[in-house]
């Protein structure tokens, strides 16, 4: 059965060399092969956005990509956003301050979508925020507090722009 392919993937700055089946989903690779379970899976058909990670700096849905497609690429997951729980990224802080998460299951997907968005658009309007998160589903919060958190995060990140650029790799 097994027909394994060697791949080399950099995740949160760490280089992993693994042999995987060609049909292994990127989400399963991250969660089960590497044990990075911060990336969640909500639908496995590309709709909910829960599984979003950065692929060479761009948000992608890891449930509709294969691990082999990540060969030679750089992935960032929610585990790569901050050093530890005491040193949250300004976006994470803003989510907590504005109560933008309840069950928190969707949150990693939102964070990864928004990291890329705020990098591209550091001064977003409310309408732009609404559009940016329209591909991520949250069943708990009704989005209002998420939108407030993004506004706050933009302010915080603009204040500490350099740190962010250093921490994450963008294309």
């Amino acid at each position, binding site marked *: *059965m097994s027909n394994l392919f060697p791949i080399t993937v950099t995740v949160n700055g760490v280089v992993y060399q693994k042999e995987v*089946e060609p*049909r*292994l989903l990127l989400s399963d690779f991250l*969660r*089960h092969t590497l*044990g*990075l*379970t*911060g*990336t*969640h*899976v*909500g*639908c*496995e*058909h590309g*709709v*909910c956005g*829960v599984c979003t990670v950065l692929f060479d700096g761009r948000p992608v849905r890891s449930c509709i990509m294969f691990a082999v497609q990540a060969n030679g690429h750089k992935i960032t*997951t*929610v*585990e790569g*956003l*901050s050093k*530890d*729980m*005491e040193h*949250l990224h300004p976006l*994470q802080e803003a*989510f*907590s*301050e504005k*109560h933008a*998460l*309840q*069950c*928190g*299951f*969707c*949150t*990693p997907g939102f*964070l990864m979508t928004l990291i890329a968005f705020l990098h591209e658009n550091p001064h977003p309007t409310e309408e732009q*925020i*609404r*559009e940016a*998160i*329209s*591909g991520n*589903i*949250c*069943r*708990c*919060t*009704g*989005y*209002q*507090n*998420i*939108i407030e958190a993004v506004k706050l995060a933009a302010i915080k990140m603009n204040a500490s722009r350099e740190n962010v650029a250093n921490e994450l790799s963008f294309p």
Partner: protein
Amino acid sequence: MTTSYIGESVKRLEDARLLTGQALFVDDVHLPKMLEVAFLRSSYAHARIRKIDVSEALKKTGVVAVYTAQNLGDYWQAGPLLVSPPPIKRLTFHKKTQVILAKDKVRYVGEPIAAVVAENRYIAEDALNDIIVDFEPLPAVVDLEKALLPDAALIHEDLPSNLAAHVIQEKGNYFAIKDQADLIIKRDFSYDHGAAVAMENRAIVADWDSKGQQMTVWDTTQAPIPIMNGLAGMLGLSENQVRVIAPFLGGAFGPKIMMFYSEEMLIPWISKQLGRPIKWIEDRQENFLATTHERGQTHHAEMALTKEGKILGIHDVFLHDTGAYDPYGLTVPINSQCTLLGPYDVKNYYSEFSVIFTNKMIVTPYRGAGRPQGVFVMERLLDLAAKELHLTPSEIRSRNFILPEQFPYKNEIIYQDFAPLVYDSGNYAPAMEKALELIDYKKFVEEEQPKLRAEGKNIGIGVVSYVEGTGIGPYEGAKVTVGASGKVSVATGVGTQGQSHFTTFAQIVADVLKVNIHDVTLVTGDTFKMNWGCGTFASRGMVVAGNACYAAAMAVREKILKLASEILESSIENLELGDSKVCVKGMPEKKITLGELAVKANPLRGAVKPGTIPGLEAAAYFGPSTGATSNGVHAAIVEVNPKTLRVDILKYIVVHDCGKVINPMVVEGQIHGGVAQGIGNAYYEQLVYDKKGQLLTASLMDYLLPTSYDVPRKIITGHIETPSPLNPLGVKGTGEAGTIPAASLFVQAVENALDNPKLEIREVPMSPNRLFELLKES
């Protein structure tokens, strides 16, 4: 310095873990030698199973076992009845609960038939294709109104019909009063199925440790303790041998308290059979097909009124769809029946319902739990009456509100908690006034609406009110412990699915013990830490478990002061508790820390007084005599696009009374989320079954959840606090308040926006398509 936390918007203690990907969800549990399961599910809504051939599947490399009803042996069984019917006279109830794996017959699309256990999920799913089932298709029962016709196929062939239950409840005498009415409004209403769709699907990991003779189960359940007790019974183990952990859950909203799902009965048993850890993770399609859902009623209702708009009485006969089985008893239709009465003084009520078996997934409570249907009927009847009588929506409601001096208000009929429905407290008029003020009702209808209409805009306003029976018994428990480090740990039995229990329960305990909230850690949902309790449902976490935390903390506080008074040689009245220490008043140097006290309370040598219970620890339980009734008013302004019939919710007001508020930020969050689900329920989400009982909307591409574009632009909340007299904290529940009236409000506002006298929306979910059809008809 110690601050007071109750009533403050304290930031959540659980956030850091969730934000950094460190919170444990069931699918994150990975154990050595773990196998994975995939289920073969019925593709027919109704069929006889002639034969199942699993031989090819077993040959596949990586497949370890395949289970069907045949090879479960004695373990094959039907699940328990979770809620038995309440003591109502002349009640009929036929119990039919789901089985572990379908044996002779399948009764809904998605019913599990076989379980494949393999080295990983990929292989297990491959093997599903190798199983051959010989079905004999039977006609499917889908349409509620046709299910009782003599020629309808029988879903449970040992019953005379598809009737699952029949209940009549009465208050006063509707038939006697009907003749005195100036106006009778009589209409049919329907409320179709919708799903909870928590972002996390269901999941179970079971690990039988044969050396330790110990079963550990991680389960996405709202009720870990009942699961532990039930599994112990089914597996022939003692409760001490079964540990059920409900870690972080990615939302639940009701369906995760359904017990026992087939998978919940089977996965632990397989682990015991094979002696290896077993994992099953539901995928999204399975979640649509095989996780319980709700709504699904048709009502034939009638309201008798005076010409002043005072309700004389209501007559309602309705059908409730329970799906293929009825393990949750009558909770949902009883809630509809009771909540229909709302905040109104209704003296005469006749309510009769029939519960119907159909070839659909089982119906159990989903956020709102029958209440939205009842509220929909009541609010629509009031809207129709208001139109006839030329009253505004708020006028007709205000004229019928129960007055403050009428509490406790007795509704006489029996509620879901088996007790006569009594509203403990409330003050309804101020909530209405506040809502009208926040939405600026007068200005809108007198100035803005005419102006916008003149500009060709379809803009409308709506106002509805409701009650929410919350915080029902029987009980919950909590255990509070102060450790040698001075840190406080709190264990409760309720599972947590995003309600912020880690924070709100800690607020209560920190206030009682006068410690920093960051020194309080909460354990929920681990039966090894707390093994008595019922679960998280019916907006009861704060009311029941919150008060248990309070009682346990008070007991520990007493222990602290007693011990400190002995050590510091001072009377208790003369002691001061604060900053994790006790000192003698006015003598800050005469002090002892909580950590030191904890050590003294647990001596290793010497003697203790007879009857001493060691440690700074206490467990306490709280069970309210009856539920606490929350209430509220929602109002909204909407704009309907005349071409696309897209509805934009420009303003949304929620004025809500949930008694004493522990954490306003958390309550508002609950309301925002509840409203979003209610709006989804009103206009976007619908479980559509075709005539053969196939679910046509079993993916997130077909079943539309509200996105950031569909929710209200801004929800403004106003709180009224009428403390409940039924519990020491004075709290009431709030989890379902956002959802319950949202669909009723939505349709009222849309009707108002479209300003078409012939348009009458009497069904939800609406959708742009359905609204288009209704507009064409009118």
